[in-house]
């Protein structure tokens, strides 16, 4: 069973193993720096479907199916499935994952969903409640635009602080056992909602940065670790504005992560070449960077200990119109590359 450290940091007794993972993406993602690492790409973003919602459902379904195949598992093997996305009623997950007929717990964490589902799946596997657990999420630029902003063909104006919702899905399968070298989930930390008073829905990086800063600071304290203990720290998706604010907020506590920090929103797209303003965002952004970059790089032996902090702006368009400020959230997962046999935790 996992042990509780401090307020909400969990250290896993029997660290869950990442059995397999897969990512699916759209056209812009395929043209981005990680384009070649995707398992599946749909250049027209439609995946052969008739609507953007159907496309997102299919994309997430294919990502999870591919992850199961890569792990040599059948859909009946999943003891539990945690999934969520950005759409109302979590359409992409609850409609898209129907065919798996797996025990399903839907979650909403906006763009933090990948870390949230990984955290929950890890707790289930470590606690012996699941031999195999799935964590999956998606976002689709076109379905998100029509729900949160404007019709695609409307000439809306994007300020430079706006972020680009990624068309991408990521799925990870966690199991209790696995062969070395393997990636284990060692720690996780559930974040607290931080609302710094940002009301601008076009500046979500600013709304999320305090949640990430508070979570990191608390995690280092509760786990008795320091930034130097990790080869890489990935936040998702603060973008340029949120990343700059994160450094400033952490500097107040004399924490400096700038040497080992990357942001998923800045890795998925090339800002100089692709018109994404402050960077990528969306639940699928950090999920795709996790499955296309972070986990493959770890398996290649380039990173030993990695912190994955997915951030979310829990905004509702209704509440933005009512003038309410945007709640920010972040959740953390600590991955460790176990090269051989039983290592000390």
């Amino acid at each position, binding site marked *: 069973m996992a042990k509780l450290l401090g307020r909400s940091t969990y250290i896993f007794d029997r660290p869950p193993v990442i059995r397999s993972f897969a990512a699916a993406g759209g*056209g812009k993602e395929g043209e981005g720096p990680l384009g070649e690492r995707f398992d599946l790409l749909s250049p027209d973003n439609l995946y052969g479907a008739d609507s*953007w919602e159907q496309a997102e459902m299919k994309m997430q379904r294919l990502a999870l199916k591919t992850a199961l195949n890569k792990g040599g598992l059948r859909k009946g093997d999943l003891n539990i499935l945690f999934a969520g996305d950005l759409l109302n009623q979590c359409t992409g997950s609850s409609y898209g994952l129907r065919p798996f007929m797996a025990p399903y717990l839907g979650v909403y964490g906006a763009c933090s969903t990948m870390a949230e589902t990984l955290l929950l799946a890890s707790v289930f596997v470590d606690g012996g409640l699941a031999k195999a657990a799935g964590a999956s999420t998606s976002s689709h630029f*076109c379905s998100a635009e029509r729900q949160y902003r404007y019709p*695609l063909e409307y000439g*809306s104006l994007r300020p430079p602080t706006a972020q680009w919702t990624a068309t991408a899905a990521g799925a990870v399968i966690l199991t209790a056992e696995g062969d070395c070298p393997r990636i284990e989930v060692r720690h996780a930390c559930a974040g607290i909602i931080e609302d710094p008073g940002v009301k601008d829905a076009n500046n979500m990086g600013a709304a999320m940065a305090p949640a990430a800063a508070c979570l990191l600071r608390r995690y280092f304290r509760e786990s008795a670790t320091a930034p130097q203990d990790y080869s890489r720290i990935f936040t998702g998706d603060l973008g340029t504005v949120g990343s700059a604010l994160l450094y400033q907020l952490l500097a107040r506590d004399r924490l400096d992560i700038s040497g080992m920090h990357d942001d998923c929103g800045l890795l998925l797209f090339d800002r100089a070449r692709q018109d994404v303003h402050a960077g990528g965002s969306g639940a699928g952004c950090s999920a795709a960077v996790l499955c296309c970059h972070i986990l493959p790089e770890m398996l290649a032996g380039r990173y030993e200990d990695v912190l994955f902090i997915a951030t979310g702006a829990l905004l509702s368009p209704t509440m933005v119109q009512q003038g309410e400020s945007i709640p920010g959230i972040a959740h953390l997962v600590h991955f460790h590359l176990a090269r051989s046999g039983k290592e000390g935790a």
Partner: protein
Amino acid sequence: MAFFQALIKAFLVGGALCAVGQALIDYTKLTPARILVSYVVAGVALGGSGVYQPLLDFAGAGASVPLTGFGALLARGVRQAVAEHGLTGVFSGGLTAAAAGVTAAVVFGLIAAVVFKPKSK
């Protein structure tokens, strides 16, 4: 020659009205939707008070094509209708003047919805 002069006048006046809108977007907290509403309402006020007519005479489409021109058109329509029909004109004049533009937008919108699909981005 007069043709080109008319084009240049329209270009300058229309461009200036749009540049003001852009300055409002960039340097105030007003959202584009609020700016468009303000433009129409301002157009009604300017048209109604007679301030906009000289600009229409000078720049033609340069003053009628921006949304302030739409507002001025509403004001002129309601004024004519009140002059002809009295109080009922207060209710019919605005929509009558706007009829061609609104109907065109609706009909072409419906046609476009049948013919085209939004392009993925």
